Every structure is written in C-alpha cells, then in structure tokens.
C-alpha cells in the first residue's frame, strides 16, 4: 500500500505554515515572523514561551455541499500572532500592526498556488486585542480569520459482502 497523504484540511494548515515562513525582513517584509515560532500542533509549544509566536489552526469544517462520493466544506481558519508583553520588545502594538500587514500580504495569493482540492481561500477579518490571563500574563494579539473551500473526493468504500 502506498503511504496515504494527509487529509486535505491538514495539507492546508501545512501550506499556510509554509507561506507564513516566507515572511522575512530579508524578503522585503516588515517583520521576521517566518523565522519565529509557528505553532500548528500542540507539542511544538515550549512551556516557558515568551517570544512572539504565530498559531495556525483550523477550527471548524462545515459541509457546504457534495454528493455520494464527494464532500465540499468550508473551513474556518484562524491565524493568530501574539507578542507577549515583557518579552523586551518595544511597541508591541506597532509590531502587531506590522505582523497583520505581513500576514495578509503573504496569504493573499493566486488560487492556483493552493494545494489541489482547496478551491478558495479568503481572509475575512482581523482583530487586534490585548489579552490578559489570570496568571497576569499580558500579550498583544492580532487574530486573522480566514475561510477556505475544500472539496474532497472519495473512492467509495463498499459494504462488506453479506
């Protein structure tokens, strides 16, 4: 058996991570998000994380159509860039504005560059907020929500013969 490719929704996450990795000041961007920490799965977060980080997650996939051997879904994606206060950075809010600009620039792309099966990708809203948790950690966050259209086709799985 050939090794199965990962599901399309995960391919999308990896694709977005690779796009975010392109954000380097050496490549004409305003920030160096791409060389920083980009979290797509849980085990990648160190316990004592205090550097700016980008988190990419697919939160919801809702079916938008399909048939007996295909399914189209809308994926809701959030891309979050977080600058912890006290990480020694000046102007965390300015940094968040720059990060938003860079993320939007890196994620505005021709549909043909997306993984095969992803039929649409669009950025919806950006929220800038200050987060504070009970432990007193404070961070400035830019949260970008995006939606992607996925169409997966399946080879039918037959019932076992009676």
């Amino acid at each position, binding site marked *: 058996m050939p090794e199965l490719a990962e599901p399309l929704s995960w391919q999308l996450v990896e694709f977005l991570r690779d796009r975010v990795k392109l954000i380097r000041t050496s490549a004409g961007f305003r920030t160096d998000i791409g060389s920083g920490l980009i979290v797509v799965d849980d085990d990648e977060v160190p316990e004592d994380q205090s550097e700016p980080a980008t988190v990419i997650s697919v939160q919801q996939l809702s079916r938008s159509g399909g*048939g007996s*051997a*295909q399914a189209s879904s809308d994926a809701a994606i959030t891309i979050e860039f977080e600058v912890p206060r006290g990480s020694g950075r000046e102007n965390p809010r300015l940094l968040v504005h720059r990060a938003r600009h860079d993320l939007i620039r890196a994620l505005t792309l*021709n*549909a*043909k560059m*997306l993984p*095969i*099966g*992803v*039929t649409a990708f669009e950025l919806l809203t950006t929220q800038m907020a200050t987060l504070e948790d009970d432990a007193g950690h404070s961070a400035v966050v830019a949260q970008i929500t995006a939606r992607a259209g996925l*169409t997966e*086709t*399946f*080879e*039918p799985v037959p019932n076992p013969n009676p």
Partner: protein
Amino acid sequence: MAQPQVRKFAGDLRFWEHGANGARIPVIPEPADKFGNQPLEQSSLTFSYEAGDSVEIKSKRRDARYQQIIHKDSNPGVTNVSITALEVPPAILARMLYGTLVSTKIDAGTAPDISVTVGSVNAPVKLPHNFLLADTAPTFKKGAVDLVKDQDYTLDPVHGLLIPKPGGALQDGDIVVANYKYDAYLETAISGGTTPSKSFLILGDMQDRINGDEGLLTIPNVDLTVDGDVDWFSDEPIQVTLTGPVIFQSGETDLYTFKIAAQSAD
C-alpha cells in the same frame, strides 16, 4: 472505481489587444511574466451561448406519432464571453471610456517660444506639456510685453494649465508665447467615445482545483465592450464587466478552444 470528475477552475487570464498588421499588444506588459503579459485580476469568466436557428420536422402520419418531432437540427449560435475585471490597466480604462488609447513617453526638455491661443480669459489654457519645472521660472509673453505671474495669470504646473486672471493683461483671443522647462512623464491619453469595442486575444492558463488537470483556454478574437454603468466615485475599487461576442479569427481553425490534460502517472 473512478473518482467523480468534480471540477472547479482557477485561472490566469491574459489579454492581448489586436493591433494593426496582426500585432498583439499585451494589456499588462511585464517582463518578469512567463508570457510577458501579466494576468488581469478578475473575479469571473462567463460563457453564454445564443442558440442559432433550429429546424424541426414534425410527423404528418396519422398515428401515434402525428405532430411529434421526428427530426431536429440546430445551427450553431453565437458565443458571448463576460469577464469581471478587478483592475483597470490603461487598455481596459480605454474600454471604460469607449475610446482609443495613445501612450506617449515624453522626455524632459525645454519648450522654446511655444504659442498658445487664449480662447477665453475665463477658462484655463492648456499648454502642450505637463509637469512644468519651477527651477527656471516659466515665462509668458503677449507680443513684446512680459506677463506678470499672479497679476496677469496663475499657473497649474502639474496639468500644464495657464489660468488668466481677471483684470490682467490677457484678453480673449490673445496669443501667448511660452517658455518653460518640463519634466519627463508618461502620458496615457484616451479619446473617449470613439471606439465602442475592441478585439482581444485571451489566453487562459486554467487549472482544475480539484483533480489538478491543467487546461488552456484560447480565444483568438473576442470583441469586448464594457457592460453597464461604471461609477467613477464608487466606495469600492472600480470593477468593470467586459462582455462581447467571440469572433472567428481568420487563419484559425476554431472559434475558441479549451484543451485540458492530465499528466500520466507513469
């Protein structure tokens, strides 16, 4: 079992304007592009078909088939293409104004003794150049008399306009001799209203987003005009809908073609 052939296309549409003597002029010339012509930002491509005349022959036999169609033949119809453009390069701007476009690159220079006629002292007078330079002050003479700035006239150097002042020396019908220096600029001049439509060659580098097939759409000649009203001051960036019939281009074998290919796995 075969997977269902679900399709969704994405593509880059490149436009070439038909020029004189078979020339094809890229709408957005871009040396870095593989075709030397950057794709036009667009959000939709629609094909519509107006069916040709059809001939129906009905049975006259007095039995169950009486008056039923026993033969039908349709003549080919007219294909129309409609494209929503999200950007307005000069060639598309000319479509928006139903006019012809002339782009001129003007090198910096000096205009010695250029005569312009003041039609009416109440309206600005267009000088032959834009972007007048201020480092050597432009001078204007009426006959042997030097005109005085801010007394006889004011100047709009960006648009190259001489604006006569009320109560100044300028009168209707005066001839003014101008001396000035101007900067280099690229001028796109559109004479509006003269050309309702224009022929384009469209090459669509299409991809099936679901199974990855690569397709090439070739429309050798489509006569495009702008459909509907365009609000110049709309809140959103201007979108124009280009629409028109596909024309049979002499020398081509097909009206338009779409070729789709899947690379074999082995």
